[in-house]
């Protein structure tokens, strides 16, 4: 059952502990702050608030 569901869902959202939000698959990001779009298939989004390259992670979380 679990396995079946995984195959059906093309988009995987992974909350990395003490790290970014990793999204892979068929998604469309709309950044309403910067007015940009991204459907590249894989991104890492900042979750700590410290990135200098928002909305993306720049590994400031590791410092």
């Amino acid at each position, binding site marked *: *059952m*679990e396995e079946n*569901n*995984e195959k*059906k*869902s*093309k*988009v*995987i*959202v*992974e*909350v990395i*502990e003490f790290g970014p*939000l990793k*999204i892979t*698959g*068929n*998604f*469309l*990001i*709309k*950044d*309403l*702050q*910067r007015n940009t779009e991204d*459907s590249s298939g894989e991104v890492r*989004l*900042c*979750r*700590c*608030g*410290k*990135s200098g390259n*928002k*909305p993306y992670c720049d590994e400031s979380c590791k410092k």
Partner: protein
Amino acid sequence: MEKNESQFSGGRRYKNKDITVYWKPSACIHASYCYRELLEVFDPSKRPWVDMEGSTTDRIIEVVNLCPTEALAWKWNDETKNDSVGSDQLNHINFRRPELMNTDENDSNNEPVSVKIMPDGPIVLKGSFTISYNGNKKEVRDSMVSICRCGVSDHMPFCDGQHRKAGFIG
């Protein structure tokens, strides 16, 4: 325990090992064939009201076929078997609700998941996807999830609205 009930747009669906039964409440005219014939499966006083383990697959199909509306429909879980059902199977979704053949798993896959970066706020995910966090793995179906982007939520990884108090900019 395995969850045999799930939602689709317009209603709920219930599964056993052979078939899936679709229930669309808005189409029900309370003709009540289902629970008069097979209370072991269709019991309006219970939640969920459909128990797919309450009888045999053959009997469930028989009773779903009695439903005079499209409130109840069914299909084989083995998709290859759905192509060759006879027209005597009145409430097979090929005849009752052909659109369900597409809206199910297939459609939600084609639709890109919407990810919105809210100004000075969270990441809002909308659609169908698999999400893993804190060692959990969950299937999200046609729904919304808000992920904290400011780093101060008390309900990590989810947004709890504290970005405003925290004065988060980004």
